[in-house]
């Protein structure tokens, strides 16, 4: 019962903040709603027993990446907002149709799978006891060591690239 209350409350928050992110007039407001959305997702991770990932979500996404967005929004002090200029080639109705088609399709698949007689809803198994930080770390440094190193190289490359872009082209 408790998990149901938590789930529906959090789902409402996540989707509500998500709608605000894509509808907010000002980009700064969008960023704030994005932070709130990420925090709600982090709480969902805790409910799902992934504490380590939840903390990383808050630390890296909410505390790092979104701060970067906020900086950029404040740096580009917009004289004319992008939405003011209307592009005649733009098909807004088609966009809405496509997005709702994606939602309908995915939801239909999930509902169909869940209601199929052979696949009765599998209850969420009990969370891994003893904390998952150790397990995640263990996997990262054994089975996924190469992927881990590649990811670090990717981050280094991104860092160099960002510095190169941000410098004024003289």
């Amino acid at each position, binding site marked *: 019962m408790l998990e*149901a209350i938590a789930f529906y409350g959090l789902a409402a928050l*996540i989707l509500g903040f*998500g709608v605000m*992110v*894509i509808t907010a007039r000002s980009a700064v407001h969008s*960023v704030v709603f*994005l932070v709130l959305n*990420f925090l709600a*997702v982090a709480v*969902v991770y805790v409910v*799902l027993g*992934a504490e380590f*990932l939840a903390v*990383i*979500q808050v630390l890296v*996404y909410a505390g*790092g*990446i979104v701060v*970067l*967005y906020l900086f*950029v929004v404040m*740096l*580009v002090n917009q*004289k004319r*907002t*992008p*939405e003011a*200029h209307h592009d005649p080639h*733009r098909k*807004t109705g088609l*966009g*809405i149709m*496509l*997005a709702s088609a*994606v*939602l309908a399709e*995915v*939801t239909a698949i*999930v*509902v169909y*799978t*869940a209601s199929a007689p052979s696949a009765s*809803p*599998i209850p*969420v*198994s009990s969370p*891994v006891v003893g904390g*998952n930080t150790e397990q*995640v770390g263990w*996997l*990262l440094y054994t089975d*996924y060591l190469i992927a881990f190193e590649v*990811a670090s190289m*990717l981050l280094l*490359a*991104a860092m160099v*690239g*960002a510095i190169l*872009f*941000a410098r004024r082209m003289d």
Partner: protein
Amino acid sequence: MHLYPITAYHYLVLAAALFALGATGVMLRRNIIILFMSIELMLNAVNLNLVAFSRLNGHVVGQVFALFIVAVAAAEAVVGLGILLAFYRNKETLNIDEVNLLRG
């Protein structure tokens, strides 16, 4: 599909809805920064899926995968925002429709 008790499918539907929201944002908005944020929403939906599956299978591999997605998202945001700043310096706007310097 019942509203109660909560199963992994509920989390999958939530992730699907979040993904669709992000897709809607990408298709509807013209501000490049908001497009980036919509992409972040979609990445989050994917992470939500992976964590739900990890819980369903009682194995943490899904969470490891999600960690890599977080790293890739960080790299993407950094480079994307760098390009965006360079673009803004040239065109003084953030409208995605005006990114057409290569159009013949």
